[in-house]
């Protein structure tokens, strides 16, 4: 991952702490050492991404990659996705939707809203771990743009 001026931050929005931990472990195993900032609910995550005033100015100049679960306790991940992609400061940040739903309408909706990658969490652990490790390898080579 782009390691030049500022390190890329991985913002992980995942309500299940177990999943969050497993995702982090497997990303690390793929050799990604970027800082991962975990959030377990949508409100805190939006606070971080958009700032307390909701303008998104806080994210200007950051290099952020968002890992997003759709099932959150206080809002759906789709709301967050919509906000990220409609804010001029965050819309270029890649968003990876990582969720259990494989409903085709849901997938279409996420891509329509500007999601960059949609991954369904595999049911069994081996598949899950494997998918996350591959995602980690993908992270290692991808370029993340600096937001305006």
């Amino acid at each position, binding site marked *: 991952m782009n390691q030049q001026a500022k390190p890329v931050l991985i913002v992980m929005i995942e309500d299940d702490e177990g*999943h969050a931990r497993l995702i982090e472990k497997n990303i690390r195993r793929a050799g990604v050492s970027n800082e991962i900032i975990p959030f377990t609910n949508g409100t805190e995550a939006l606070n971080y991404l958009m700032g307390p005033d909701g303008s998104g100015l806080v994210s200007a100049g950051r290099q952020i990659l968002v890992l997003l679960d759709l099932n959150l306790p206080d809002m759906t991940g789709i709301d967050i996705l919509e906000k990220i992609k409609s804010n001029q400061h965050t819309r270029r940040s890649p968003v990876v939707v990582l969720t259990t739903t494989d409903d085709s309408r849901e997938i279409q909706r996420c891509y329509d809203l500007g999601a960059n990658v949609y991954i369904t969490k595999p049911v069994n652990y081996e598949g899950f771990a494997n998918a996350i490790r591959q995602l980690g390898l993908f992270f290692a080579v991808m370029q993340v743009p600096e937001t305006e």
Partner: protein
Amino acid sequence: MPISKNALVRSTVLFLLLGLAALLAIVGAMVWLVNETAVNSSNLIKARSERSALITLRGLGQDAETGQRGYLLTSNPAYLAPYNDARAKFPDQMETVQSAYADEPEQAALAARLRQTMTEKFAELEQTIELAKSGRYAEALAIVNADRGRALMDEARVFFARSIERADQTVLDSIARQQRGIEMLRWVTFLGALVIIAVVGGSIWTVWQYTRQLVEAQREVAVLNADLERRVSERTADLGRANEEIQRFAYIVTHDLRAPLVNIMGFTSELEASLGALQEYVGEVVAPPAADASADAADETGKAEAARVAAFEDLPEAIGFIRSSTRKMDGLINAILKLSREGRRTLKPETIDLQGLLENAANAVHHQIADAGGEVVIVGRPPALLSDRLTLEQIFGNLLDNAVKYRSKDRPLRVRIEAGIGPGNTVVVKVEDNGRGIAAQDHERIFELFRRSGSQDQAGEGIGLAHVRSMARNIGGDIGVQSELGTGSTFEITFARDLRKVIGAI
């Protein structure tokens, strides 16, 4: 007043009979009057001819008398002409009068007496004329003066007057009778017409009432029908919603169950990975205890031994159980997920060649069946239908797989598939096998999720038939079984012939 069907028939028949009676009365009266008229007119004609004959006869008498008197006064033979004429005509005319009274004895007797009187009169006239011709006027006048001739003529006149009056009376009577008959016919016709009008009016009224009731009843039926249809479609929609809700529920539950399961499995794997490091370390440290070890060392060795047992026996065993249980749970959740996903799939109604579809399903298991000497026969005539192809393929594939899986070990498998039309625009397909059969108490249970029947010698999770039932219900049908343990099973699947109506109802 409500009119029943029987009452309508009864009153119609009654009205018809009344009308017929009135008509018969009119016709009868008419026939009677025609007869009466015939009798009257013949009487009338007879009376008229009697009268004219009598008048002519009387005229003859008077003519003869007039001729005699003229001749006696003038002795001019020219005055004898009326006499001669009358005398010549008299016998015929007398005959005519007498024959007119042939069937009336009393009148005939009077006529015979008249003949005598008239004959005598003519004799007296002849006598006087003969005397006058021979110039004996005095003798002739003496005879006239004797008044014999006048007396005879008076007698005849009385008869004529009475008989003419009688004939006139007959004419008057006939006319009166005729008029009475006409009057009667008028009344009969009038009353008959009244009856017929009443009957027709009554019939029309009855029919009108009955028709009105029919229309009313029809309207009520239509209203009830509409209500019934509305209720049926409401129920169907409710059922559809409930079904949908259950499937959504299943979907949500499985997703929410799966998230913690991933954690359990994930951290079990982590645990296993850590166990590797632990085992490596413990295996190095723990050496077999030395014979001369001190108490401390022995204690140390005991701890190390316990750690070794934990690392190499207890922990792997616990992890093994966790893994097998989570795998099983994962399988079950996946099964439910598959069912709910199937339920959520959008059905696509299309024209299905059921015969071809059944043949394909049979071909898929052909190898397994033919190898053991068995066979699949498809009979019946499947109707044209509109349904979801994938669903039907899965249903019959599943049933045939089961037939193969649970076949009887001691005889070759025979499967008979029969397709036909069922009640209420449905298709019925029976799949009959001679397999190991299902015990009666399990006939309902086999369609429940995760339930299986008989000896558990085949792999499976108890999902197949539950899945088939759910699919059959999705396409507007159901599945049932008839089976005897050790003999075979017959699965009967019904489903809507036109899937669009099922989808439209939900």
